Structure formats: structure tokens, C-alpha cells
């Protein structure tokens, strides 16, 4: 590896390293604003100026020598150079602290500041601002610029979630590059030129029509100043007042790292955390902005007990007493215990032990697939980003799994930001370029509807709904016999698969909805790694626990004959024939409205534990400083239930649950690292029965926003477009629904407007999810909501 001398330190760094990374690696520092770990170096801010020189070689390959010193002669660049766009070479000398370098940095800082307003005291970025920090370190400390600063719009809404302060922008171009390079959608650009340059979107003049996509919030994180602001968190607090907790997002199975910033017991802001092998530094907008439900007025903070037919606030003691009164005379071994699948492993194992202590076989988690995800050979997300062929089947990853979507975009660029130095990921990876060529022919996307990722795929096709098995069969046939007659898309995908060494097949909710077991088995024959998207946040972890019904046990949704039940999470409606129902939830909607006792549930930001993401990676969940009132996690709720039922529990807290898990997985559950870990013991998944639902001849297309996010935030409700409701032509004519028609739907007790999409097939398979009603023009349909992401 080439040797480089930075000031007085000699270091060795890999070829192709930028001078910026070399000098940080050596332990020195220069200011920079336009560079970012995952974006291409552009050299726009001109802050990272250094003096640099390197020796040159004679035509015969020997070094040109300096006669005076007897050392190879150094040829310095005239003046200073931007280190972010300069590649190192053998023997290069970089000076960051020499007088010309220091003068250049300070002079540039002065330029950056002349048009930047001095409103740090009211700026959301104040205290966590790169410009502020760097100005303190490298600036003159005094202004020589005596003219009026540039005045521009300080409250320019780019979307419902992002406000641009045009005065604060220092034109580093991070946000513009982000949109082109990371999600691959060009949403922003510079308008005007010279001193008049500003950032804007050409999406629409009208804010309501503006769509910056599902990953727009990340630009606020990477903005080095307070120009791009999170409109949800705007003016909610100062950076030093926030109690910041790094945890794992549990709104989907990505396992994305997030920072939860709370103040006075409320979540004020969520930022992306950094996990270079999972989400890098990007999260989708639902993960970022979908937290208002936690602090919404509708949040349950005390138990409710039905008195005289009405639910009334009560203490936990009263709730326990009410449960005791309702359940004491019933058969404990017949109690149905169900939980949504976005709970931690600790909660899951507590539920398992509770069911065992009761002796009931009616236990289940939802939504879930009817097959074990760990039964296939799964790639890590890093392997996905390095794959030489990716075939996405039956998935709208843009909505279902943002991280998977972005890692596939990374695969298309062909460069994974994986150079590691003493300071972490490379700050200026010179392999990344602006507007890089994408290897579109390495990606094939098949889905029953047109999905976003098809825009970037060289091979794409819309197949008949429910046709996944047939598609996989044809792929296999075409792969083994190139003359096999099939559609051009399938035959090119098969060719791509046959020629690839590290192929990955991604299976999403459309493909796994009705019969995941058969689809996974069919996909496994193709000889590629398979990445199935779990139906819920911890679906990949809970499958290792005994949380599915025993023989003749009642699955979730198949409640016939059940007299008593405990449901944790969102349930659409109270099962019929039930005599006593306890619901553990965060918002009083759906079944909770008809429950006998409602227990307040702690949100996933308020508990400690472990979750497993779609790769099978174990990730820690940390407790943020959020005031959930008297709400409790599932372990707490189970303890209350156990008290009421006089059942002795082995697990009464997260720690004891962790100890139980330690023995099963061979991991220290007290100390799961933030970047996650794969267990040393390969756990085996339990066989899963098919999850059945009552209705379900129609389904809503997947959506990153969950029901509870819509409940909790008017902003989210107003900003997002309408969902698609897919239904078969048979049903459509039965209920008098036309394609493209707007329908009023009632899902989980919430009214929603959806757009009907009619498909020319006999039936649309149901997804294992919650139920609701669709009010068609002539009848009421049952709806099964898309599984992924919803609990």
C-alpha cells in the first residue's frame, strides 16, 4: 500500500484513497461540507484545502531526485488543492497545518459565512451544525463583510415534511446529489446561477402535488447547515435539550438504525442512525416522520375497563381485578393469546412461556407467513448490494422495505461504500461519481402491479396476480433450457440468473401472501440466495419461538369456538362469539373499542429488547426517554394477566427473558451491539400453520405508512396519496366497483379513501393481515390489508 506523509505522520493507505481520507486516517482534520460518506465527491465547497505534493518518476521508472537533499523531489500543486477530489499516490506529502493551508481554509470559511444568516439562536440545527462547529474551529472569528446578506425565502416548503431556509443554504449540493445517487430519483436541483443559486424542486408549483418520494427526509440529516428542516420537529426543541437514544426502528423488518430524540417525555424527532451494514445512514419517511402517534392525544396511557357498557379509565389494579372477574371461571387452557409480530424477542419468549404456563394451544403472532424465513439461504444486505444479479418478485420494495430498495440501488451503481479507515467509512470515496452509469440489466423486477423499482430495472414485467408460482416455474425451466418458450422478460431474467455468481432473489408480500411455503420452495430451486421480506418487524425473530398454535389450536383470525382471548396489538374487530376480550394496544381503535378490558401498550420506542431483521441479524432495541404514562410492554401486560389468573411466571422482566434467550441462541442479550450480530447457534424455526382470515377477496397494496401513523398524524394523512385496493373482476362486478373508482374503506375502524384497481383474474389472494370493511357502491366487502410493515 502506498505510503503518504500527512504533516509529520507517515501512514499507509490503499490505492485510490482520497487525500481527505488519508489525512483523517492519520488523525488530522480539515473542514468539509460537500463530502459525505455515501455520496460522490464533487469539490464544491472548497473547504478541505491542503497543500499537497508528490514525487515523480523518470521515464526509466526511478524517482526524480532532489540533488540538495538526496531524497525524491516533491512536486507541489500550485497553491492549495481540495483534498476530497485528490487521489493519493506513493510518497505524497499532505500539509494541513501549513500557513497557506490554514489561510486558505479560513478564507474559504469567511466566504461560506458571508451570506449565511446569523440566526443560530433560532435555528433547529444550532448546536449540531457542521457549519457552526467548523466556523468556531477554522473561521476568523470576526466578520470583514460589511454588506447586506442575501435575503431569500426562509420558509420555503419543499414538501409537507421539509422546509427549506434559502438563506441558510451553503450550496454544498449534498441534497441534490442524494436524490440522484441514493434513491435514484431526481427531485431537487439548483435553480438560477451565481449568487442567486437556490435549491428547489420542479415537481410541482403546488405543494399538494409535490412528491419528493419515500426517502426525502434524509436530506435533513445530511444538510450541513439548518437549511433543510424536518417540518415535524421544527421549533420543537434545541439540540442540547434532546435526550438522544440510538435504537432499531420497528415499523418494518429492515432493522434500520435510528436516533430517537425526546424532550420532556415526548418524541420530538427521529433521525437516521448509522449502521453501515444495514441502512448505512438512510431511513424512509415513515420511519422518520411516523412517530406522532406515540404522543398523540389518542394515545392510551391508562387501562380502560368496561363499566355499564362503557370503557372507563381505571388503574392497573382495577384492570387486573376486572380481568380476574371476567376470566376466573373460564378454562385457562382455552384462552387465546395473540400478539402482533412487531414485539421484541424478549416479549415473544415471555408470551411463549405464559402460554405454556396456561397450558393453552391457542397462541399466535400476526401478521406472519406460513413458512419459516430461515428455511432459505438468506443473503445479508451487504451481499445484496454486491450481488451480480437481483430478481425481485412480487414486491413493491419502495413501500415494503426501504432499506432493501436502497441497497439494490447501490447494487445498480456497482460501488458499495465499504472503505474503512480510522475515522470510519470513507468520507470521499473516489469510486463514486456524479450521475453514475447504472447496471440496469442486472436487475429484474416482476410484480402484479407496476412498482417504482421497475423504472430502474433493465428487465421488468407485470404478471397476473397470484402467478408467482407459475413465474418461478417458468424461470427455472428457462434457466435450464434457454429455448424454453416464455415471455421475453422471464427468459432474460433466467439468462441473467444463469450467468450470475452471486444472484439474489427478493420475494415480497405479493409473492408470499397466500402460500409462502410453496413459493420459497420453488424459489430455492433456482440456486440463488433468497431474501424474503417478513410480514412484520420481528417476523424473522419470532419464528424461532413457540408462538404458533398447537394441533387444533386456533390461529389468529380463526377464532371459531374461542370464548376468551387476549390480543396485544392492533386488531380490526372483536371476534364473534367471544365472551371476554382483553386488548393491549396503544390507540383506542378497532377491536379495542369493543373489548372488555383495554391495557395501555408501550410503544416500541419505550422498551428495551432485541429484534431480528430480514437478514436474520439480531439488533438491539433501546428505551428512549418517552413518557408512555402507565403503559407497559407485553411482559408487563402478561404479568398483570398472570396475576389475575393466578399463574406463576418464569419470566417477569426483560432481563429474565434475556437469560432464557441466551441459552437458546448463544448470544449475550444484554449486550447486542448496535450494528447487530448473527447468533452463533443456528436456531431452528418452528413449523408454522397457515394463518387464516375470514374475508379477503381484495387487498390493499403495500404502503410504508402504517395505520397507527395515519391515526396519529394529520400531516401524514394529508400528505400521502391514496392507497390502491386490488380486487378481482368478479368481485368488482359483484359489488359494482369500477377500476379507478374512489372508495370509502373502513380499516381498523378508520375511514380511508382508496382507489379501486380491478384485475382480470378470478380471485385476489388475501394477505395475512387485519380485516376491515370496504363500502362499495352496492355492498360491503371484507378487506385484508397488506401485511408488510403493518402490525
Amino acid at each position, binding site marked *: 500500500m502506498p505510503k503518504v506523509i500527512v504533516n509529520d505522520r507517515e501512514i499507509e493507505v490503499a490505492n485510490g484513497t482520497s487525500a481527505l481520507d488519508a489525512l483523517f486516517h492519520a488523525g488530522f482534520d480539515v473542514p468539509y461540507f460537500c463530502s459525505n460518506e455515501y455520496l460522490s*465527491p*464533487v*469539490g*464544491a*465547497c*472548497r*473547504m478541505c*484545502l491542503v497543500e499537497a505534493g508528490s514525487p515523480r518518476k523518470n521515464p526509466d521508472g526511478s524517482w526524480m531526485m532532489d540533488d540538495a537533499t538526496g531524497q525524491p523531489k516533491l512536486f507541489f500543486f*500550485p*497553491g*492549495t488543492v*481540495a483534498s476530497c*477530489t485528490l487521489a493519493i499516490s506513493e510518497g505524497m506529502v499532505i500539509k494541513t497545518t501549513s500557513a497557506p493551508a490554514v*489561510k*486558505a481554509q479560513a*478564507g*474559504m470559511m*469567511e*466566504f*461560506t459565512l*458571508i*451570506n449565511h444568516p446569523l440566526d443560530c439562536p433560532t435555528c433547529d440545527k444550532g448546536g449540531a451544525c457542521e457549519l457552526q462547529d467548523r466556523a468556531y474551529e477554522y473561521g476568523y472569528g470576526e466578520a*470583514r*463583510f460589511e*454588506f447586506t446578506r*442575501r435575503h431569500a425565502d426562509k420558509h420555503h416548503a419543499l414538501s409537507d415534511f421539509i422546509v427549506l431556509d434559502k438563506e441558510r443554504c*451553503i*450550496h454544498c*449540493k449534498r441534497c441534490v446529489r442524494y436524490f440522484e445517487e441514493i434513491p435514484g430519483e431526481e427531485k431537487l*436541483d*439548483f435553480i*438560477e*446561477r*451565481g*449568487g*442567486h*443559486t437556490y435549491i428547489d424542486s420542479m415537481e410541482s408549483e403546488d405543494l399538494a402535488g409535490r412528491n419528493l418520494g419515500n426517502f426525502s427526509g434524509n436530506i435533513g440529516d445530511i444538510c450541513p447547515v439548518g437549511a433543510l428542516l424536518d417540518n415535524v420537529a421544527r421549533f420543537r426543541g434545541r439540540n442540547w435539550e434532546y435526550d438522544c437514544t440510538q435504537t432499531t426502528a420497528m415499523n418494518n423488518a429492515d432493522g434500520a438504525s435510528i436516533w430517537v430524540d425526546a424532550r420532556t417525555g415526548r418524541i420530538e424527532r427521529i433521525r437516521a442512525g448509522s449502521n453501515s451494514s444495514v441502512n448505512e445512514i438512510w431511513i424512509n419517511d415513515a420511519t422518520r416522520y411516523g412517530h406522532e402517534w406515540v404522543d398523540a392525544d389518542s394515545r392510551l396511557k391508562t387501562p380502560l375497563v368496561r363499566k355499564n357498557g362503557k370503557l372507563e379509565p381505571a388503574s392497573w389494579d382495577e384492570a387486573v381485578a376486572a380481568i380476574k372477574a371476567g376470566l376466573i371461571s373460564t378454562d385457562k387452557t382455552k384462552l387465546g393469546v395473540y400478539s402482533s409480530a412487531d414485539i421484541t424477542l424478549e416479549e415473544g419468549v415471555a408470551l411463549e412461556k405464559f402460554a405454556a404456563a396456561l397450558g393453552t394451544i391457542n397462541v399466535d403472532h400476526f401478521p406472519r407467513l406460513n413458512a419459516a424465513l430461515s428455511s432459505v439461504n438468506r443473503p445479508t444486505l451487504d451481499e445484496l448490494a454486491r450481488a451480480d444479479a437481483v430478481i425481485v418478485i412480487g414486491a413493491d420494495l419502495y413501500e415494503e422495505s426501504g432499506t432493501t430498495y436502497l441497497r439494490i440501488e447501490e447494487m445498480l451503481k456497482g460501488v458499495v461504500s465499504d472503505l474503512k479507515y480510522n475515522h470510519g467509512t470513507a468520507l470521499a470515496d473516489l469510486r463514486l*461519481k*456524479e*450521475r453514475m*452509469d447504472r447496471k440496469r440489466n442486472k436487475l429484474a423486477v416482476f410484480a402484479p402491479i407496476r412498482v417504482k423499482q421497475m423504472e430502474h430495472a433493465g428487465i421488468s414485467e407485470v404478471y397476473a396476480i397470484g402467478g408467482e408460482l407459475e413465474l418461478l416455474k417458468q424461470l427455472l425451466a428457462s434457466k435450464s433450457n434457454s429455448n424454453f418458450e416464455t415471455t421475453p422478460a422471464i427468459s432474460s431474467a433466467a439468462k441473467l440468473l444463469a450467468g450470475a455468481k452471486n444472484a439474489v432473489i427478493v420475494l415480497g408480500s405479493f409473492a408470499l401472501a397466500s402460500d409462502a411455503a410453496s413459493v420459497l420452495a420453488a424459489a430455492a430451486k433456482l440456486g440463488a440466495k433468497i431474501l424474503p421480506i417478513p410480514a412484520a418487524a420481528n417476523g424473522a425473530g419470532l419464528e424461532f419461538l413457540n408462538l404458533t398454535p398447537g394441533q387444533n389450536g386456533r390461529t389468529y383470525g380463526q377464532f371459531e369456538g374461542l370464548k376468551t382471548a387476549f390480543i396485544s396489538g392492533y386488531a380490526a374487530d372483536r371476534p364473534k362469539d367471544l365472551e371476554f376480550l382483553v386488548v393491549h394496544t396503544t390507540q383506542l381503535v378497532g377491536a379495542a373499542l369493543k373489548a372488555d378490558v383495554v391495557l395501555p401498550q408501550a410503544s416500541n420506542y419505550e422498551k428495551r429488547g432485541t429484534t431480528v431483521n430480514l437478514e436474520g441479524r439480531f439488533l438491539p432495541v433501546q428505551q428512549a426517554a418517552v413518557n408512555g404514562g402507565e403503559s407497559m410492554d407485553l411482559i408487563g401486560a402478561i404479568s398483570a394477566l398472570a396475576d389475575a389468573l393466578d399463574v406463576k411466571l418464569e419470566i417477569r422482566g426483560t432481563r429474565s427473558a434475556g437469560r432464557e434467550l441466551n441459552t437458546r441462541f448463544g448470544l449475550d442479550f444484554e449486550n447486542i451491539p448496535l450494528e447487530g450480530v448473527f447468533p452463533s447457534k443456528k436456531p431452528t424455526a418452528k413449523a408454522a400453520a397457515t394463518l387464516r382470515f375470514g374475508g379477503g377477496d381484495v387487498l390493499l397494496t403495500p404502503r410504508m405508512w402504517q395505520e397507527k401513523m395515519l391515526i396519529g398524524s394529520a400531516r401524514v394523512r394529508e400528505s400521502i396519496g391514496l392507497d390502491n385496493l386490488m380486487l378481482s373482476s368478479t368481485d368488482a362486478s359483484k359489488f359494482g366497483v369500477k377500476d379507478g373508482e374512489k372508495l370509502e374503506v373502513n380499516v381498523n375502524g378508520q375511514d380511508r379513501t382508496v382507489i379501486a384497481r380491478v384485475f382480470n383474474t378470478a380471485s385476489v389472494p388475501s394477505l395475512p393481515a387485519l380485516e376491515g370493511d370496504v363500502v362499495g357502491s352496492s355492498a360491503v366487502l371484507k378487506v385484508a390489508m397488506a401485511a408488510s410493515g403493518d402490525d
Partner: protein
Amino acid sequence: MTAILENTAPEKPKSITSGLDPRFKPRLYEHVGVPNSWTLEYALKNGAYEGAKKALAGTPEQVQDEAKKSGLRGRGGAGFPTGVKWSFMPKEDSKPHYLVCNADESEPGTYKDRYLMEHDPHQLIEGMLVGMHAIRANVGYIYIRGEYILAAERLERAILDARAAGLLGDNAMGFGKSMQVFVHRGAGAYICGEETALMNSLEGLRANPRLKPPFPAQAGIFGMPTTVNNVVSIASGALIMRHGSDWFASMGTEKSKGNFLFHISGPVKRPGVYELPLGTTYREIIYTWGGGPTEVIKAFNPGGSSTPMLPFTDEILDMQADYENCAAKGTFLGTGGIILIPKNCDIVNMMYNYVRFYAHESCGKCTPCREGIGTWMVRLMQKLISGRGDPNDVKILEDLFGNIKGKAFCLLADSCIMPVQSAYNLFKEEFEYIAQNGKPMYSGYANRWNVE
């Protein structure tokens, strides 16, 4: 006469370094000003496309060698050898290559390309054929400044005529090769003269300069190997093929060969474009051809507004205009656009006008240009000339030169600082006078600039 020739025969004939030399004959501007010179009929009558025919009959390497032998250097300002630039293009690859003619002539004091394109468009198209053949390109773009309406129209007409005559098209001149030339009109940005910004603009993107590497020869427009040449470089390519590299090399000084378009503006009797061999003295250009100044002159920019200015002294006037002599004096031959600066014109006023131009044309990509020139310098100069300045402003101005020069992403910022700094070094007393007294030292042109 005969005797003299015999005596000198064994020696190499002396290089032509004066327009007065009887052996010198203008070629680039030979037809400029002749009625109907832009028509294909006229061009064909006068030997157009003969050079292209010769070029296409040979291999690309032969054309490159001919260009290298001629000693042709880029006429856009930087003076990089054109033949060498052509040889940078990858030799064996399956990618399409592109030749781009940089006709975005926006430098103040420069207007040589305009008349060439207006009056002799076929010479440029012929040059495009030669250049495209040299770099194995089938497509060439002429990126023309948006304001050059007549030139663009005549070029487009000429392309249509040439295509109809089979000189361009799928089987250009019967050599079985597809050769297409397109005109792309710019939208009026000086930065598009920078080759990478030009390529962005040509692709339909915002005209910001791109990072190099990759250099255009590796990945230019649409990510394909591309060469960008100036109008006169390309037209000279056609002439070299027509008249031979020896003809071209017979003019000029040792390292600066060929004919060159000098143009004079400012207070001079006959401003305009003059085709002269390189190595002509500034005295000859200004006095013999330009007719001499009409006012007392204190300095001049030798090659457009962005070249550092030279004092108007006998030593400089007797200097031969070529790349090396200019470099030795700390300036550039540039585009050959000589701007004479009268003594009676206050240099601060004039430099304010320069800075205002560059501030307006800054693309906004990098900080020193956008903030340093676009915001600070233009206002500081405005303060000075409006009489509100103080001596400290001159110190700040001097400091800004250092903070901007050599630190920006592309050369636009340096192009602004170089003339202003040279003016500051030459006429520091004028800056100090206006800062001290609130009024210019010379007020001959005081009413010429609109201050507010």
C-alpha cells in the same frame, strides 16, 4: 532576388512572423466579407472539402500526425497541442466517440469565431469532418453561443446543404462512413465555454463544470470518449489538410506555429479581426493593422478579458505575440483578443465592469466564485467606485485575490482574479486614490459605467 534565394536555399526558409511578409496569405478569414461566401456553391468553388477528402482517404493516425507535425495548438486560450489531444482518444473500443466544437465564444473582447462561422461555415464543417475522422467519431456537435443567431442559422443552412450534397450523412463524401454534424445552441452562459460545463449543457443538464478525472477523452458527453476543440482549432485542421502541415509550420515562432486570429478592441482606429502569423509583434498588430490607438494607452489585455494585462511599453510592444513570450510576461496569448485600455479610463471603473461580468456569469457551484466574486468582490468594487470606499477596502480586495485565486473548482474564478489582480499590481495608485478620495484618478470615462 534570385541570387538571394539561391544563397538561402540549403537553409530552412525563415519562418513567417509578420503579416507584412509577402509569403503570408490569410486563409482562415480568406473569404470573410466576400458576398455569398457562406454558400456551398461559393465554398466548393474555392476548394472547400478538399482537405476533408484528403483526411478521410487516410487513417485517423495520419490526420493526427499531420496535426502534430503542423504544431497546431488549441486556439481557445489554453494552447494545448490539438494533434496530441486527438491522440488521447481511446484507440480500440466499441463506444461511440464525439467531437464537440466549442463555439460558445463569450469572452469579452473576443469575436473571432463569430465572423468565421457567419461568413465561412463550410470551413468549420470541413474541419469537423477532419477532426471527427481523427478521433474516430461519427457524430460532431457544434455548441454555439445562443446569441450568435446569424452564425447558427448559417451553420444550420450549411449543414443541410452539405448533407444534401453528400458531404455529410450516412455515406459522407462517398467514404462509406456515417458523419453527422449537429448545431446545439446555448442559452447564454459564459461557463458553457468551459469544456465540462459545455458537456453538461449539451446533455441537457445544468451547466456546472464536472470533476476531472475522468477527462473528456475517457468519459465525456453521455459518458463516451469526447474531444472538445475551439472553432479556430477545428477550422485550422481543415486548412492543414488542404495546404499541408508544412504550410502551417512555415508560420510562427519555434513553439507557436501557424496563423492566428488577433482581434483588437478599445480606442483604436481600425478595431477588428486580423489574421496574422504567430510571432507578429504587438506593435505591428496595434499600429500597422489596427491603425494605432486614438488615445493615450496605459495597458492592454493580450487575449480577452481574462488574461492578465500588460503595460503599454516599448518592450511589450516589440514582443512577438506567441504562447511562450506571453507566458514569460505572466500572461497568456489567450484568444488573441487585444483590449486596449486608455489612460484616461480609471482602472477601478474598468475592473468593476470586469468583476460584474464574472459575478453575473459565475455558475454558483463552488464557494469562492459564488460568494467571493459573486457577492463580495462585486460589492466591494461597487463601494469603491461609488466613492464610499476607504483604504481598508483596498487591503481587503488584495486579500480576496489570494483567497479566491487557485482555490475555485474551475478557471472562471481565476479568469476574473487574474486581470483584476494584474490591474491592481500595475495601477495600485488608482485603487488607493479612489479609496482615499472617493473619486477616480481619471475621469475620462466616468459616465460610461452605470454605478447603481
